[in-house]
């Protein structure tokens, strides 16, 4: 079936099978490899994308169900080649080890901070509890999120 997806602000018309997840179509059809596949059951958060601004597991959404909705992957955060300030905070604080969880952490953290500007560390911990980092680098991820939250509050 023909489906119109809106990925990172760009309309993409693709042929999908009814049983293909959004994750499969993003990676295998559109070559958007910044979306990662982890557990396939919505627990790990590696495949997080924003759907109309809210975090979802792209492995638990049929591509057909995502038609005409705004999909944001981590690549959609950069602005004309410049990294998003949250991405810069991740770099500054060494919040990236193997990098596999990073897209999900960034998107989940950003979606939360957009609705809870200036959130404290405890709230941020709670916000990313559904995203697993198997390097266990949570402390630096929280450092980065916290620093960004403080900067964003000042602006």
């Amino acid at each position, binding site marked *: 079936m023909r489906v119109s997806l809106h990925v990172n602000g760009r309309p993409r018309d693709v042929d999908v099978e*009814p*049983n293909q997840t959004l994750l499969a179509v993003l990676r295998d059809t559109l070559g958007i490899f910044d979306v990662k596949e982890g557990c396939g*059951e*919505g627990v790990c*958060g590696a495949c997080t994308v924003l*759907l109309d601004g809210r975090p*979802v597991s792209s492995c*638990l959404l*049929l591509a057909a*169900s995502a038609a005409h909705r705004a999909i944001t992957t981590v690549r959609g955060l950069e602005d004309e080649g410049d990294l998003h300030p949250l991405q810069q905070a991740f770099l500054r604080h060494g919040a990236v080890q193997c990098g596999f969880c990073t897209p999900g952490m960034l998107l989940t953290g950003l979606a939360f901070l957009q609705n809870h500007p200036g959130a404290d560390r405890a709230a941020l911990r709670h916000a990313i509890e559904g995203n697993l980092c198997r390097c266990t680098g949570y402390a630096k991820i929280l450092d980065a999120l916290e620093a960004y939250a403080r900067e964003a509050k000042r602006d």
Partner: protein
Amino acid sequence: MYPFEYVAPASVDEALAVLAEHGEDAKVLAGGQSLLPILNYRLAKPRVVVDINGLPLDGVSVGDGRLKLGALTRHATLEESDEVARNCPPLREAAALVGNVRVRTLGTLGGSLAHADPAAELPMAMVALDARLGIAGRSGRRTVAAGDFFTGYLTTTLAPDELLTDIDIPVTRDMGWAVEEMSRRTGDFAIVAVAALIRLDRRGHVDEARMTFAGVGPAPVRVPAAEDVLRGAEPTRDRLGHAAETARAALTPESDAFVSSAYRTLLAGVLARRALTRAVARALEIR
């Protein structure tokens, strides 16, 4: 995932026609947060997936002393809606404990109830809150009390050709509440969960108490014997402990690969005492 035919009906009648035609071979797709893992792991092989997300079943409203929720109401809406917070705050607390943030974005109230996981928060909350479930079928509409809806492990009174369309709950503003649970990791299904609701009379004695557990049987379990301990009594620390102990003694949970029956029973008693303590504190504030 095995291949299937994808149908997105435009009306409830159309959905019912598809379900009637395909019976057990059709699966309803709502938020997909239970169905998609099952399909990803090839634990089910439906011939037809009926995506009901296009149906107008997602409203939240209040009328005639009842909170009315469409079956497609997302968990995130239960968490964020002012109507829910004002008219049924226990439901908000239960919804906030479901899965992770991504599950709550897409997952639906109706989907959680129809899936009927015995450790899930929302089926437990529906039994605790005396919810009434509206079900559409080819021969018309019926309603069923939440307490009669869940019949066993992942099993309800829903027939394959029926659709859960709406849920209504008595407005619950005059009761103190608390939902407590323990899980191995945050976001996992609870090992045991409990919802406590307490209304106090003018003298500060318990007018009504409800204690409902999840994870301790094939369906949510309400424990009238523990509620009887509280009714008419002053909610002292000892009395709450006695009620929690009565609940613990009444439960006969199964063991599983992770947790023994004895541990589950112990946990139920501890969580019951915590929940009752918090519910009474809130009931005192409300009064």
